[in-house]
Protein backbone atom coordinates (compact mmCIF):
# COMPACT_ATOMS: atom_id res chain seq x y z
CA UNK A 1 0.00 0.00 0.00
CA UNK A 2 2.87 2.29 0.86
CA UNK A 3 4.63 1.54 -2.43
CA UNK A 4 1.49 2.37 -4.35
CA UNK A 5 1.29 5.71 -2.61
CA UNK A 6 4.90 6.37 -3.48
CA UNK A 7 4.17 5.63 -7.12
CA UNK A 8 1.20 7.97 -7.14
CA UNK A 9 3.29 10.64 -5.48
CA UNK A 10 5.99 10.23 -8.13
CA UNK A 11 3.46 10.38 -10.96
CA UNK A 12 1.92 13.50 -9.47
CA UNK A 13 5.34 15.13 -9.23
CA UNK A 14 6.12 14.10 -12.79
CA UNK A 15 2.88 15.67 -13.99
CA UNK A 16 3.70 18.88 -12.14
CA UNK A 17 7.18 18.88 -13.64
CA UNK A 18 5.64 18.32 -17.07
CA UNK A 19 3.24 21.23 -16.59
CA UNK A 20 6.14 23.46 -15.54
CA UNK A 21 8.13 22.35 -18.56
CA UNK A 22 5.23 23.20 -20.88
CA UNK A 23 4.77 26.53 -19.13
CA UNK A 24 8.49 27.23 -19.54
CA UNK A 25 8.22 26.37 -23.23
CA UNK A 26 5.28 28.73 -23.60
CA UNK A 27 7.23 31.46 -21.82
CA UNK A 28 10.11 30.91 -24.23
CA UNK A 29 7.63 31.15 -27.09
CA UNK A 30 6.31 34.44 -25.73
CA UNK A 31 9.86 35.77 -25.39
CA UNK A 32 10.57 34.58 -28.91
CA UNK A 33 7.43 36.38 -30.18
CA UNK A 34 8.51 39.62 -28.53
CA UNK A 35 12.00 39.27 -29.94
CA UNK A 36 10.61 38.47 -33.39
CA UNK A 37 8.36 41.52 -33.29
CA UNK A 38 11.34 43.66 -32.28
CA UNK A 39 13.42 42.21 -35.13
CA UNK A 40 10.59 42.75 -37.63
CA UNK A 41 10.24 46.36 -36.49
CA UNK A 42 14.00 46.79 -36.79
CA UNK A 43 13.95 45.41 -40.34
CA UNK A 44 11.26 47.93 -41.32
CA UNK A 45 13.02 50.76 -39.51
CA UNK A 46 16.28 50.01 -41.34
CA UNK A 47 14.42 49.84 -44.65
CA UNK A 48 12.80 53.22 -43.97
CA UNK A 49 16.17 54.71 -43.07
CA UNK A 50 17.80 53.29 -46.21
CA UNK A 51 14.91 54.63 -48.30
CA UNK A 52 15.22 58.04 -46.68
CA UNK A 53 18.96 58.12 -47.42
CA UNK A 54 18.36 56.99 -51.02
CA UNK A 55 15.74 59.72 -51.49
CA UNK A 56 18.10 62.34 -50.07
CA UNK A 57 20.79 61.17 -52.46
CA UNK A 58 18.35 61.37 -55.37
CA UNK A 59 17.29 64.87 -54.33
CA UNK A 60 20.88 66.06 -54.08
CA UNK A 61 21.42 64.68 -57.58
CA UNK A 62 18.43 66.60 -58.93
CA UNK A 63 20.15 69.97 -58.30
CA UNK A 64 23.12 68.77 -60.29
CA UNK A 65 20.88 67.62 -63.13
CA UNK A 66 18.96 70.91 -63.07
CA UNK A 67 22.24 72.81 -63.36
CA UNK A 68 23.19 70.62 -66.33
CA UNK A 69 19.84 71.31 -68.03
CA UNK A 70 20.18 75.06 -67.39
CA UNK A 71 23.73 75.12 -68.76
CA UNK A 72 22.79 73.11 -71.86
CA UNK A 73 19.81 75.33 -72.69
CA UNK A 74 21.83 78.50 -71.98
CA UNK A 75 24.58 77.34 -74.34
CA UNK A 76 22.03 76.48 -77.03
CA UNK A 77 20.30 79.86 -76.60
CA UNK A 78 23.61 81.77 -76.63
CA UNK A 79 24.52 80.08 -79.91
CA UNK A 80 21.07 80.58 -81.40
CA UNK A 81 20.90 84.29 -80.41
CA UNK A 82 24.46 84.87 -81.73
CA UNK A 83 23.50 83.30 -85.06
CA UNK A 84 20.30 85.32 -85.17
CA UNK A 85 22.12 88.60 -84.46
CA UNK A 86 24.90 87.84 -86.92
CA UNK A 87 22.42 86.98 -89.62
CA UNK A 88 20.24 90.05 -88.87
CA UNK A 89 23.29 92.35 -88.93
CA UNK A 90 23.82 91.42 -92.58
CA UNK A 91 20.25 92.43 -93.42
CA UNK A 92 19.99 95.53 -91.21
CA UNK A 93 20.55 98.07 -94.02
CA UNK A 94 18.01 96.36 -96.27
CA UNK A 95 15.49 96.23 -93.40
CA UNK A 96 15.94 99.94 -92.66
CA UNK A 97 15.51 100.85 -96.32
CA UNK A 98 12.38 98.67 -96.59
CA UNK A 99 10.83 100.38 -93.59
CA UNK A 100 11.80 103.83 -94.92
CA UNK A 101 10.13 102.96 -98.23
CA UNK A 102 6.98 101.89 -96.43
CA UNK A 103 6.99 105.01 -94.30
CA UNK A 104 7.59 107.47 -97.15
CA UNK A 105 6.28 105.66 -100.20
CA UNK A 106 3.79 103.16 -98.87
CA UNK A 107 5.81 100.31 -100.31
CA UNK A 108 5.82 96.98 -98.53
Amino acid sequence: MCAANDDLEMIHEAEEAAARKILEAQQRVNEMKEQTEAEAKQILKEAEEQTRRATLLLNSDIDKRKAEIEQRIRNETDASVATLEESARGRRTAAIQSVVNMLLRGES
Partner: protein
Amino acid sequence: MSGAKGILDMIEAKTAEKAEKIMKEAEELRELRLKEAREKAADLADSTAKKAEKEQKAELARYEASMKLKAKYRTLDAKESLIKDVLDSATKAAEKEIEGKKRKEILIGLAVEGAAALGIQSLELVFPEKQKADIDPAEVAKAVSKVTGEKVSVALAKETVRSSGGLIIRAKDLPKQVDNTIEARAERLSGRMRELAARVLFREKAASE
Protein backbone atom coordinates in the same frame (compact mmCIF):
# COMPACT_ATOMS: atom_id res chain seq x y z
CA MET B 1 7.75 0.39 -9.52
CA SER B 2 8.05 -0.83 -13.09
CA GLY B 3 4.43 0.23 -13.80
CA ALA B 4 5.01 3.67 -12.37
CA LYS B 5 8.33 3.91 -14.24
CA GLY B 6 6.49 3.35 -17.48
CA ILE B 7 3.99 6.07 -16.68
CA LEU B 8 6.79 8.47 -15.70
CA ASP B 9 8.65 7.77 -18.92
CA MET B 10 5.47 8.31 -20.88
CA ILE B 11 4.75 11.62 -19.13
CA GLU B 12 8.30 12.76 -19.77
CA ALA B 13 8.22 11.70 -23.39
CA LYS B 14 4.83 13.31 -24.03
CA THR B 15 5.95 16.51 -22.29
CA ALA B 16 9.14 16.66 -24.32
CA GLU B 17 7.17 16.03 -27.49
CA LYS B 18 4.61 18.76 -26.65
CA ALA B 19 7.31 21.27 -25.68
CA GLU B 20 9.19 20.51 -28.88
CA LYS B 21 6.00 20.97 -30.91
CA ILE B 22 5.31 24.31 -29.20
CA MET B 23 8.84 25.49 -29.95
CA LYS B 24 8.74 24.24 -33.52
CA GLU B 25 5.48 26.07 -34.20
CA ALA B 26 6.91 29.19 -32.60
CA GLU B 27 10.03 28.94 -34.80
CA GLU B 28 7.86 28.57 -37.88
CA LEU B 29 5.79 31.59 -36.88
CA ARG B 30 8.99 33.54 -36.26
CA GLU B 31 10.35 32.71 -39.72
CA LEU B 32 7.02 33.61 -41.28
CA ARG B 33 6.86 36.92 -39.44
CA LEU B 34 10.43 37.84 -40.36
CA LYS B 35 9.85 36.85 -43.98
CA GLU B 36 6.77 39.06 -44.05
CA ALA B 37 8.74 41.96 -42.54
CA ARG B 38 11.54 41.54 -45.09
CA GLU B 39 9.04 41.50 -47.97
CA LYS B 40 7.31 44.60 -46.60
CA ALA B 41 10.70 46.33 -46.32
CA ALA B 42 11.56 45.41 -49.89
CA ASP B 43 8.16 46.66 -51.12
CA LEU B 44 8.63 49.91 -49.22
CA ALA B 45 12.10 50.44 -50.70
CA ASP B 46 10.86 49.59 -54.17
CA SER B 47 7.73 51.77 -54.08
CA THR B 48 9.58 54.69 -52.50
CA ALA B 49 12.37 54.49 -55.06
CA LYS B 50 9.87 54.35 -57.93
CA LYS B 51 7.86 57.26 -56.50
CA ALA B 52 10.99 59.35 -55.95
CA GLU B 53 12.23 58.57 -59.45
CA LYS B 54 8.86 59.47 -60.99
CA GLU B 55 8.73 62.75 -59.02
CA GLN B 56 12.29 63.59 -60.01
CA LYS B 57 11.55 62.90 -63.66
CA ALA B 58 8.45 65.13 -63.53
CA GLU B 59 10.35 67.91 -61.73
CA LEU B 60 13.18 67.79 -64.27
CA ALA B 61 10.67 67.90 -67.13
CA ARG B 62 8.98 70.95 -65.55
CA TYR B 63 12.37 72.59 -65.02
CA GLU B 64 13.43 71.96 -68.61
CA ALA B 65 10.13 73.36 -69.92
CA SER B 66 10.61 76.45 -67.76
CA MET B 67 14.20 76.91 -69.00
CA LYS B 68 13.07 76.53 -72.62
CA LEU B 69 10.39 79.15 -72.07
CA LYS B 70 13.01 81.52 -70.63
CA ALA B 71 15.23 80.80 -73.64
CA LYS B 72 12.31 81.60 -75.94
CA TYR B 73 11.75 84.91 -74.16
CA ARG B 74 15.46 85.66 -74.46
CA THR B 75 15.35 85.02 -78.21
CA LEU B 76 12.23 87.19 -78.50
CA ASP B 77 13.98 89.95 -76.53
CA ALA B 78 16.95 89.76 -78.90
CA LYS B 79 14.62 89.95 -81.92
CA GLU B 80 12.69 92.82 -80.36
CA SER B 81 15.92 94.70 -79.78
CA LEU B 82 16.99 94.22 -83.42
CA ILE B 83 13.55 95.29 -84.72
CA LYS B 84 13.53 98.38 -82.47
CA ASP B 85 16.96 99.35 -83.77
CA VAL B 86 15.72 99.07 -87.36
CA LEU B 87 12.51 101.06 -86.65
CA ASP B 88 14.40 103.82 -84.80
CA SER B 89 17.04 104.01 -87.50
CA ALA B 90 14.40 103.95 -90.24
CA THR B 91 12.49 106.86 -88.67
CA LYS B 92 15.69 108.90 -88.50
CA ALA B 93 16.60 107.90 -92.07
CA ALA B 94 13.09 108.84 -93.26
CA GLU B 95 13.34 112.27 -91.60
CA LYS B 96 16.66 112.77 -93.35
CA GLU B 97 15.45 111.47 -96.72
CA ILE B 98 12.36 113.66 -96.73
CA GLU B 99 14.65 116.67 -96.45
CA GLY B 100 16.92 115.45 -99.23
CA LYS B 101 16.85 115.60 -103.01
CA LYS B 102 13.87 113.25 -103.32
CA ARG B 103 11.73 115.39 -101.02
CA LYS B 104 9.43 116.65 -103.74
CA GLU B 105 8.83 113.20 -105.21
CA ILE B 106 8.11 111.76 -101.75
CA LEU B 107 5.72 114.53 -100.74
CA ILE B 108 3.79 114.32 -104.01
CA GLY B 109 3.58 110.57 -103.50
CA LEU B 110 2.19 111.04 -99.98
CA ALA B 111 -0.31 113.61 -101.24
CA VAL B 112 -1.48 111.34 -104.06
CA GLU B 113 -1.89 108.40 -101.70
CA GLY B 114 -3.97 110.53 -99.30
CA ALA B 115 -6.04 112.09 -102.07
CA ALA B 116 -6.84 108.72 -103.59
CA ALA B 117 -8.06 107.52 -100.19
CA LEU B 118 -10.23 110.62 -99.68
CA GLY B 119 -11.80 110.59 -103.16
CA ILE B 120 -12.60 114.30 -102.96
CA GLN B 121 -12.01 116.87 -105.70
CA SER B 122 -11.32 119.99 -103.68
CA LEU B 123 -8.25 119.45 -101.55
CA GLU B 124 -5.87 121.31 -99.27
CA LEU B 125 -2.34 120.49 -98.23
CA VAL B 126 -1.06 121.18 -94.74
CA PHE B 127 2.73 121.11 -94.43
CA PRO B 128 5.22 121.41 -91.70
CA GLU B 129 6.47 124.96 -91.96
CA LYS B 130 9.89 124.16 -93.40
CA GLN B 131 8.44 122.20 -96.35
CA LYS B 132 5.76 124.61 -97.35
CA ALA B 133 7.58 126.54 -100.06
CA ASP B 134 8.85 123.49 -101.92
CA ILE B 135 5.67 122.08 -103.35
CA ASP B 136 3.59 123.41 -106.16
CA PRO B 137 -0.12 122.57 -105.53
CA ALA B 138 -0.75 122.43 -109.30
CA GLU B 139 1.87 119.74 -109.64
CA VAL B 140 0.20 117.76 -106.85
CA ALA B 141 -3.22 118.20 -108.49
CA LYS B 142 -1.81 116.90 -111.77
CA ALA B 143 -0.30 113.85 -110.07
CA VAL B 144 -3.53 113.10 -108.20
CA SER B 145 -5.59 113.41 -111.37
CA LYS B 146 -3.23 111.05 -113.13
CA VAL B 147 -3.81 108.40 -110.48
CA THR B 148 -7.52 108.92 -109.76
CA GLY B 149 -8.56 109.85 -113.29
CA GLU B 150 -10.53 112.80 -111.95
CA LYS B 151 -9.78 116.47 -112.10
CA VAL B 152 -8.97 117.87 -108.70
CA SER B 153 -8.01 121.23 -107.28
CA VAL B 154 -5.32 121.47 -104.66
CA ALA B 155 -4.53 124.48 -102.50
CA LEU B 156 -2.07 125.16 -99.71
CA ALA B 157 -3.63 125.61 -96.29
CA LYS B 158 -2.72 128.70 -94.32
CA GLU B 159 -1.93 126.81 -91.14
CA THR B 160 0.97 124.45 -90.65
CA VAL B 161 1.42 121.25 -88.72
CA ARG B 162 4.01 120.41 -86.11
CA SER B 163 5.90 117.51 -87.66
CA SER B 164 9.36 116.47 -88.74
CA GLY B 165 8.14 115.82 -92.29
CA GLY B 166 5.34 114.73 -94.58
CA LEU B 167 1.99 116.43 -95.01
CA ILE B 168 -1.71 116.35 -94.29
CA ILE B 169 -4.10 116.25 -97.21
CA ARG B 170 -7.64 117.24 -96.42
CA ALA B 171 -10.95 118.10 -98.00
CA LYS B 172 -11.27 121.84 -98.39
CA ASP B 173 -14.81 122.06 -97.09
CA LEU B 174 -15.28 118.79 -95.23
CA PRO B 175 -13.82 117.42 -92.02
CA LYS B 176 -11.99 114.67 -93.82
CA GLN B 177 -8.26 114.25 -93.95
CA VAL B 178 -5.40 111.85 -94.30
CA ASP B 179 -2.52 112.58 -91.98
CA ASN B 180 0.60 111.59 -93.88
CA THR B 181 3.14 113.24 -91.61
CA ILE B 182 6.02 110.96 -90.68
CA GLU B 183 4.82 110.72 -87.08
CA ALA B 184 1.25 109.82 -88.02
CA ARG B 185 2.36 107.30 -90.63
CA ALA B 186 4.83 105.75 -88.21
CA GLU B 187 2.02 105.30 -85.70
CA ARG B 188 -0.53 104.09 -88.25
CA LEU B 189 1.88 101.70 -89.95
CA SER B 190 3.71 100.56 -86.83
CA GLY B 191 2.36 97.00 -87.00
CA ARG B 192 3.15 96.61 -90.69
CA MET B 193 6.56 98.25 -90.23
CA ARG B 194 7.42 95.82 -87.44
CA GLU B 195 6.27 92.92 -89.55
CA LEU B 196 8.30 94.15 -92.50
CA ALA B 197 11.42 94.68 -90.38
CA ALA B 198 11.07 91.16 -88.92
CA ARG B 199 10.46 89.69 -92.36
CA VAL B 200 13.62 91.21 -93.79
CA LEU B 201 15.80 90.74 -90.70
CA PHE B 202 14.80 87.17 -89.89
CA ARG B 203 13.42 86.07 -93.25
CA GLU B 204 10.07 85.48 -91.60
CA LYS B 205 6.99 84.92 -93.71
CA ALA B 206 4.47 87.72 -93.87
CA ALA B 207 1.28 87.20 -91.83
CA SER B 208 -0.79 87.21 -95.03
CA GLU B 209 1.39 84.59 -96.73
